[in-house]
């Protein structure tokens, strides 16, 4: 063992040759994770960036100079000049707006209701959280059965007749939005409950004394304090909704009549028609768009913190 000096510092010359410093030990334990991250995440990230500037199909034999063949920014210019691709981005934006908007309003609304004291509140909260705990693929397949126009429960319970929610292109985007809202509203609700619980009660008591209205208390106390946590929920949900894949895959499948969502298109390009480099370029454009949107939200989040 080693000795400590009077000021409790380890005397360097006392350190035994067979012992390790904490930092060395930490590095040793972190090393496998770092290696795994580099191999599985970092390398593919850079490799796909290189591929996005080439003409490459993973399906075909790799022959340097031919497959992949470096073609500069051709993939990017083709994507940006393709009106069909813009249509897919617009559809995805519409999906994000509807689903995340719905989740924010409903989630926050539910949180406000759950804050009220009533019998069975804990039980109802647990029930409300259930959809979020399920696997998105299972949820997608389950709702596909609900939506079946011939014998599904959805139309029957709402008395809608035999409406096609799955393969009618004018309607099936909304069917996925409904499921997304059903599944992820509890997430917003949970974060909102956390935010609401942190509001000091004395603020409301003071407002009561001033005879403030409900709306006034909500606007001047509740919303400003919960706002940063709502922004966090917004960031997470926007990021997730923009790259939504599992729900539409389960509900509508990837056929030509499925809603033209960008992540579904990326899958079809990369793993159905095996245009690997073109798919990589689409992936990077999605990444840039998500980073841009998230940066705007984070800017607001930082302002809210201040």
């Amino acid at each position: 063992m080693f000795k400590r000096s009077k000021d409790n510092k380890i005397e360097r010359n006392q350190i035994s040759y067979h012992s390790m410093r904490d930092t060395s030990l930490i590095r040793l334990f972190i090393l496998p994770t770092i290696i795994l991250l580099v191999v599985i995440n970092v390398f593919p990230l850079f490799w796909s960036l290189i591929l996005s500037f080439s003409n490459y199909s993973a399906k075909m034999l790799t022959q340097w100079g031919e497959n992949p063949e470096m073609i500069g920014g051709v993939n990017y210019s083709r994507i940006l000049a393709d009106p069909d691709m813009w249509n897919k981005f617009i559809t995805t934006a519409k999906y994000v707006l509807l689903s995340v908007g719905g989740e924010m309003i409903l989630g926050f609304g539910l949180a406000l209701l759950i804050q009220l004291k009533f019998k069975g509140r804990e039980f109802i909260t647990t029930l409300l959280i259930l959809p979020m705990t399920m696997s998105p693929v299972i949820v997608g397949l389950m709702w596909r059965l609900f939506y079946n126009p011939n014998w599904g429960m959805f139309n029957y319970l709402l008395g809608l007749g035999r409406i096609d929610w799955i393969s009618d292109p004018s309607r099936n985007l909304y069917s996925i939005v409904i499921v997304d809202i059903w599944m992820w509203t509890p997430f917003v609700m949970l974060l909102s409950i956390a935010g609401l619980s942190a509001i000091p009660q004395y603020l409301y008591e003071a407002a009561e004394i001033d005879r403030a209205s409900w709306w006034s208390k909500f606007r001047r106390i509740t919303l400003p304090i919960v706002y940063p946590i709502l922004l966090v929920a917004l960031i997470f949900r926007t990021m997730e909704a923009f790259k939504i894949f599992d729900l539409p895959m389960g509900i509508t499948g990837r056929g030509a009549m499925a809603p033209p969502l960008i992540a579904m298109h990326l899958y079809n390009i990369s793993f159905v028609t095996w245009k690997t480099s073109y798919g990589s370029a689409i992936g990077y454009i999605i990444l840039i768009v998500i980073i841009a949107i998230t940066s705007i939200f984070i800017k607001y989040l930082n302002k809210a913190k201040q």
Partner: protein
Amino acid sequence: MKKVSLWLVILVITVSMVAVFSLNGCKKEAAPAEEEAAPAEEAAAGEQFITIHWAQWAPADYLEKLSKGFTAETGIKVTVEQTPWETFVQKYNTEMIAHSDAWDIIVGDSQDIGNMAVNGHYVDLTDWIIEHGVDKTFTPASLTYFAEYPKGAGKYYAVPCEGDGLAWAYRKDLFGDPDNMAAFESEYGYELGVPTSWDMLKDVAEFFHDPDNGFYGVAIYGDNGYDSLAMFAEQCIWSFGGELGDYSTYEVDGLLNSEGAIAGIEYYYDLFKFVPPGFGGAFYLETNDAFVSGIVPMSCNYLAFFPGLANEETNPYAADTGYFACPPQKGPDGVERQFAALGGQGASVVTYSKKQDLAFKWLEWFVKPETQLEWARLGGYTCNAEVLASDEFLSFTPYNPTFKKTMEIFKDWWACPEYDELLRTFSEDIANYVVAGNGTAEEALNKCVEDWEEIFGAAGYYD
């Protein structure tokens, strides 16, 4: 304590390594790689095995059952690993790209044979097929479509395993109902019966179509994102006198958008008006579901999915279900043609398999006439000419006569490595007209010609 003894770290690492190697050892014991295990131990344990990869469906179960006979004869175990149809092709393509030896044999889609051959994922079986007389005992059409690439080159990469094609099931009770027969005859001027032409089939669908009472004219494929729409569309195109293109020159203009092809796609559009709601993405499951739930009088599906219709436990109308092959049709040129879309797969030996010798043993056993007969008895669709021609085969299932007829009229999709891109663009262009009702058949096919010429051009076929 701020410092930890080096000995403790060494101890942790050593224990971890011992655990990892022990687990690895256990894994090897459970599934020994035959080239690593000592032959004596292997023989004693009877642990030689091969793995076959196929889609998840009843024929794969039949194949595993059939292969028990091979295990009994040779002691070599056979596992048939199944992947759902939705990701079947993607999965084996991904494994082959990685040069995986997870499977020794792949029972792959016929249209993927070019991709697999060109990229060297399948072993060239040409000499083996000639040596074992497969070219003489199996039907020539099955060898061409399931095994040969390029077509007509005499180079084979598979052994026809499951012959399959699109055919029809119908409700005999509804077709034979005197009231229906009288009403049909008065409306269309001829007798209701098994359709003898595509035109008649449409009349029958229209006659039965009664959406207000939850009954629809026909259950056919929409677009599932793979090949469902393309398979139904291609048989319409061929039957009306069109072509998908010239498979040897890759010319498509004037063929894919010919008068016959346009008539075929217009027909598909007209027939699609009589499907139940929600059929835009329908495949085998939806068509079978519609039939067994009694909401359609007839449905089109791959024959390999017909066992569910013949089984009284899964189809309450099984006793009243009849089957027929795709009917003939006169095209705009007045010539009558009869075609069905090919399904089914061939069995290929994987280049990266470390047990190719065992895989060849299995193939050798599989092509024997007695194995083929047993294969047919279990429910598999043999392509062995002798078994197919036997009366015994025709009596195995109520739909085997329909299968035999379908085998005489089938034709396949493109088999070049770009087949998946062709499928995707074709499905998008045609679904936009047939399912979504946008534009005309001519516009859809002209767009497809444009897309395909771009794909073939990029692949260098026109250089």
